[in-house]
């Protein structure tokens, strides 16, 4: 694990402006296979924009992104998904009128045989016919995916499984986040981008999810994580990247980053020139985290 592995994701000099405001400003990032990297920083630091750029939902103004050594800059998200990149969204974007199970099955979209019918016109006709005729092989595949999806749901204990057939809009906020993660896992991702997965969860639920992510990590999944709950970040990450105002202001092992005064200033509250206060912060931080 760590720096010795193969670089799975490489980001160089990424930049994105929105009408004069630089949201991401020359960010570099390398994720090695099996690593868990957290991206932290105050609201508006550009973390989510970074995720959007990596997952192809947004196009960078400058910079380069490589997945597995191949450049993917400017590729649309649907292509990146097929290459094994899965993500969740900051505010949870589940398909509200679809059942929980169907949401997860959408995650497995690229794993269906229909997905491989890419030829321009013929492929489309074939996919239509496939859906219509529903050959035994197709049925078997759907059944298999369905079972797998249920297995993924089962990972969350009885949080989701009993609700598999309910529409997603009827779920609690926390369950929506879980559904999103389940959907991402159904893709069988090589790299998973989690954008504030514990937002809206209470301590118990957060702890639960922490264990969940830890398990994923132990299975060797490469994870990029945006998170505000520092304790979680400290426990899960191999490396932490700190962003502020679109720039990467620090990077390193969690314990190193935590002690970086720049980070403390950025994340826990800006520009207190009052040394007393700064001291308190560091102390209390230490007290909580050690």
């Amino acid at each position, binding site marked *: 694990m760590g720096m010795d592995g193969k670089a799975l994701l490489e980001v160089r000099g990424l930049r994105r402006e929105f009408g004069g405001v630089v949201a991401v400003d020359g960010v570099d990032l390398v994720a090695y296979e099996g690593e868990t990297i957290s991206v932290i920083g105050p609201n508006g630091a550009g973390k989510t924009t970074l995720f959007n750029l990596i997952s192809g939902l947004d196009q960078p103004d400058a910079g380069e992104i490589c997945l597995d050594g191949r450049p993917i800059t400017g590729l649309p998200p649907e292509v990146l998904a097929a290459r094994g990149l899965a993500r969740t969204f900051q505010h949870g974007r589940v398909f509200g009128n*679809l059942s929980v199970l*169907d949401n997860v099955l959408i995650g497995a979209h690229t794993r269906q045989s229909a997905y491989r019918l890419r030829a321009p016109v013929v492929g*489309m006709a074939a996919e239509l016919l496939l859906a219509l005729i529903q050959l035994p092989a197709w049925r078997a595949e759907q059944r298999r995916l369905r079972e797998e999806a249920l297995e993924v749901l089962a990972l969350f204990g009885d949080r989701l499984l009993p609700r598999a057939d309910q529409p997603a809009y009827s779920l609690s906020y926390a369950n929506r986040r879980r559904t999103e993660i389940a959907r991402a896992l159904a893709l069988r991702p090589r790299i998973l981008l989690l954008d504030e997965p514990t937002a809206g969860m209470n301590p118990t639920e957060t702890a639960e999810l922490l264990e969940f992510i830890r398990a994923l990590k132990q299975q060797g999944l490469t994870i990029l994580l945006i998170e505000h709950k520092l304790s979680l970040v400290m426990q899960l990450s191999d490396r932490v990247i700190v962003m502020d105002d679109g720039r990467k202001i620090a990077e390193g092992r969690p314990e190193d980053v935590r002690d970086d005064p720049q980070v403390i200033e950025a994340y826990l509250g800006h520009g207190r020139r009052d040394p007393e206060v700064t001291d308190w912060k560091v102390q209390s931080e230490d007290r909580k985290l050690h």
Partner: protein
Amino acid sequence: MPDFALRTLGDQLINGLVIGNVYALIAIGLALIFGVANLINFAHGSVYMVGAYVGWVAVMWLGWPLAPTFVAVAVVCAALGVLIERFGLRHLQSQARIAPLLATIGISFALDQLVQIIFSPNPQAFSSPLPATRIALGGVSIGALDLLIAAITFAVAAVLFGFLRFTRLGWALRATAQDREAAQQMGVDVDGINALTFAVASVLGGIGGVMIGMYFTSVYPTMSYGAMLKGFAANLLGGLGSVPGAVVGGLLLGLIETFGVALLGSTYRNLFTFVILIGVLVLRPTGLFGARRALPPEPLTGTFVASSRPVRIPAWLVGAALVAAILLPFIATDPYLLQILTSAWLFGMLALSITLVTGAAGQMSLGQAGFLAIGGYASALLTMRLGLPVEASLLLGAVLAAALGTLLTWPVFRLRSQYVALATLGIGEVINQIILNWEDLTNGPLGLSNIPPLTFLGLPITQNVPIYWAALAVLAIAALFQWRLMQSHLGRTWRAMREDDVAARAFGISLNRYKALAFIASGLVAGLSGAFTAHMYSYINNETFAATTSILGLTMVILGGMGNLAGAVVGAIALTALPEVFRPLADARYLIYGIVLLLLVRFRPQGLLGTV
């Protein structure tokens, strides 16, 4: 000769600018309403028509001069606008955007019919009280009315500009358009601003109506639809919701049309309009002048589908209903009833096709009549020109409708939500125009007559009971086809795309591909319906599948519940039957139909059976 060309150019320029001025007025009103209420107001054309009639009454009956006439028009239209907002739309604000849209369709039905009942369907002569003399400028001449129209549009635009720029209310209106919630937090009564917007927009529309009445020298109840279409086109051209864009869009549209007609002739007017419109939409989806800011972020579900629990119809009930439908001719022998139901079955297929593409896949299509037309013409021509058996041509017609229709719709795939609606409306119009003008193939307006009757295993089906069964069978097949697709991964994929296209893309769903698949599947069903209709009628022409059919089809779907297969059929039965139910009411039946629509939207916006 150059003098001559210059004169032509000058004359056409004036023609184009004058009509463009009126388009601009209508478009400004639509832009205001779209900006503030985020609504495409289908009733705007009707307000314009009412304005024209008020002006006509004042000038031709009461003999008023122009100034008080315009005041009267402004007062009546403002009141009408406020009424529409207050009683037709306000309570629908929190509903999915489709609900107020449908309500405006209902209002427009009701208003058009009301005016027709009061003033008769006949066009009324409307001559302007202005002198008929024309001012010569070089070789070009300008009439007094031309100048008046230009002056009024200019004055209205200036007053509106001043109002929006310099008055407290104008600021409140702009603030509401830009950020409704923030405006509320400044203490702006946004409901009141909404009403004000409708009032102002309606006044503009009404004044446009009076001027066009004088310019075209007559007023008539059906003048609303065309005006509304032109207003939308101008609006889209300039950028939906942008007031300066509406002005420029209106003028441009007037010029484009006029020079298009000058180049190719009047029948090509709409073809020109819509081809250019679609071009603009594709190249600059935000219009020529609306591009400064991206669209406001759409809600998480960028669709018209509200969260609701559909009424699940158990399989036995569907089966029972089907059996009942099959057995019906043995019990009720009344051919009138059977014919209504036959029409309902065929419309059911149209509704199914719309519910797939609009309800399931979230692409609001208003051009579905185009698919019907392609299917009908293709099947008819295949039997008549190539001598194919009807059974084969029905299928081929459906396939052609799917293929050609999807190809034509392709440019729309990059658009979202309300833009899709307007672009598909344009595509439907383009298909209609091609059919009209491609005389070698389609026989133009003369249409195709003596289309061979439907056959089954080579035997002609001409009696109404077998036709009823055939239509029912085709509907059942279409429903089964669609149900099967909806049960497959395609159904899931379409609905995911509808719910959140961004998240869908992030999971490998190529939007173009699945939009195309939705249009193909939908085109097959619609094409089949059109083909069946062609053989049943034995005669079709360009008017058989008019654009209003698309709107009717969409209304059926919304009524039944978007994306709900059973709902589509129920909606089709209801809306085919309603006008028949109201038939004894003669003149008033479309008035009542409109009101019923309005009430349904009010009390059950997710449709009878709910959305899926």
